[in-house]
């Protein structure tokens, strides 16, 4: 069991490391967001008396890159199905749960690594972590976000036969999860409709916790963020493991 989890994890890391275009491509988007939104909206944000928008935005952009990378790694199960490798893992004498866990951990590790790179890049944009402790707590939230969406991606991919539905998932799931999470705007004093939606978005709690850890600007309490995220990780992992166990070739 542990051997299977380990090789699935290792495979994910090797694939990530070898696909340099993907690593670089994955960094272009956060950089663009930090540059365009961070610098573009900075003056308006400051004029509204909210302070430094870049400081506010950086945790949101880290969360974004983790969300995209983790989801993508989970959804990669569909590639494995299309290119045949899934059969090799499904016919092996190991439990589906081990395969699913290995894949989730691998995807999450890759996503956290990507998040750490964005965190380092944000130093260029003037971010200065308050303490080692705040970065460590930030890593806890980054890991939770990564685990949540890696297992969520696998759950979705288990129900898909091919990549035709990918655009649908991108536009109707990943984008709304990102834009409605408070990654880009403060949650205080929102109109009721969008306020309600943000409370239903799982990423809201991840972003809020990460922002609280890194900059001290949180909307909910860190304990609530931690609790909600941990519970969601357990739920999506269980659902993902169940759906993956039902995959037929």
């Amino acid at each position, binding site marked *: 069991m542990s*051997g*299977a989890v*380990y*090789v699935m994890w290792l*495979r994910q890391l*090797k*694939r990530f490391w*070898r*696909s340099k275009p993907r690593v670089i491509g994955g960094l272009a988007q956060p950089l663009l967001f930090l540059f365009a939104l961070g610098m573009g909206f900075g003056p308006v944000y400051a004029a509204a008396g909210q302070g430094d928008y870049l400081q506010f935005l950086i945790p949101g952009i880290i969360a974004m890159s983790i969300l995209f990378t983790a989801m993508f790694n989970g959804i990669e199960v569909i590639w494995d199905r299309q*290119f*045949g*490798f*899934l*059969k*090799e*893992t*499904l*016919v*092996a*004498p*190991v*439990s589906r749960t081990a395969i699913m866990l290995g894949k989730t951990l691998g995807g999450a590790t890759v996503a956290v690594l990507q998040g750490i790179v964005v965190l380092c890049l944000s130093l260029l944009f003037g971010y200065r972590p308050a303490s080692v402790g705040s970065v460590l707590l930030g890593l806890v939230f980054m890991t939770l976000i990564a685990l949540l969406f890696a297992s969520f991606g696998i759950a979705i991919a288990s129900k898909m*036969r091919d990549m035709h539905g990918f655009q649908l998932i991108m536009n109707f799931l990943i984008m709304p999860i990102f834009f409605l999470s408070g990654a880009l705007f403060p949650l205080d004093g929102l109109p009721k409709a969008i306020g309600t939606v943000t409370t239903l978005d799982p990423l809201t709690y991840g972003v809020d916790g990460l922002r609280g850890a890194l900059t001290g600007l949180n909307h909910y309490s860190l304990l609530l963020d931690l609790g909600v995220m941990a519970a969601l990780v357990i739920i999506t992992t269980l659902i993902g493991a169940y759906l993956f166990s039902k995959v*037929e*070739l």
Partner: protein
Amino acid sequence: MDGYRHGAEEEQRTSIVATGLTKRYGPLVAVDNISLSVPAGVVFAFLGPNGAGKSTCIKMFTSLLQPTAGDITLEGIDVAKHPHRARKHFGIVFQDQSLDDELTAYENMEFHAVLYGVPKQERERRIDKALRVVDLEDRRKDLVKTFSGGMKRRLEIARSLVHHPNVLFLDEPTTGLDPQTRRNIWEHIKQLNRERGMTIFLTTHYMEEAEAIADIIAIIDHGRIVAQGTISELKRRTKTKTLEEAFLKLTGKDIREEQASSVDRMRMRRRMHP
């Protein structure tokens, strides 16, 4: 008949036994009450037109698909009840590719060895040995995406040997390969059967290949076995000179493409709206 050598040595032992095997997809019966028995150490060819139920059967034999009814025993193990135990005893080369292109040949093999619980200290030796069997030892460090179709096939065969299975399933192992590669692959397979006494269960559309390598043939059509026996028995029964003629006489000359694809479409529809 030379191919029966191993069968004679181990007269009582059967490798694969299926009884009353049935698979239904809603109203569609893909496999209809099939029973067959494969003696240990023989080369068994499972032939049939497109959509006849070959792949469905292989999926059930290899525990990837639950039969609607019937039992399968592989090397004395009930496949449905103990899939993980059964999986350690067979290797499989799927109809289409199942390698990770982004990993090297060695990494693909190592991945397999870990999944099948091959002890760490044995892995390297077994992998190198299997790569030598298919003449790929000098390509062990190359990424699989740089391999030709034939090399990928050989690598898949090598990979399926790493956990020392007693039975090897080969689902159309030579489809889409040039004649040189096809011959080369069959020679490797024959060698495995002869030297290790491995039971080989294969499907192919090339009748002359089946005729050259198989000890026993079963022909499946519309989900049922229409004939079973040695090649000479089948020829005698159908009063034909070649296996291909016997096959056409038993399964008719209608082209199955349309029917097969409508079955496939039905399966697709079921998949999309489960």
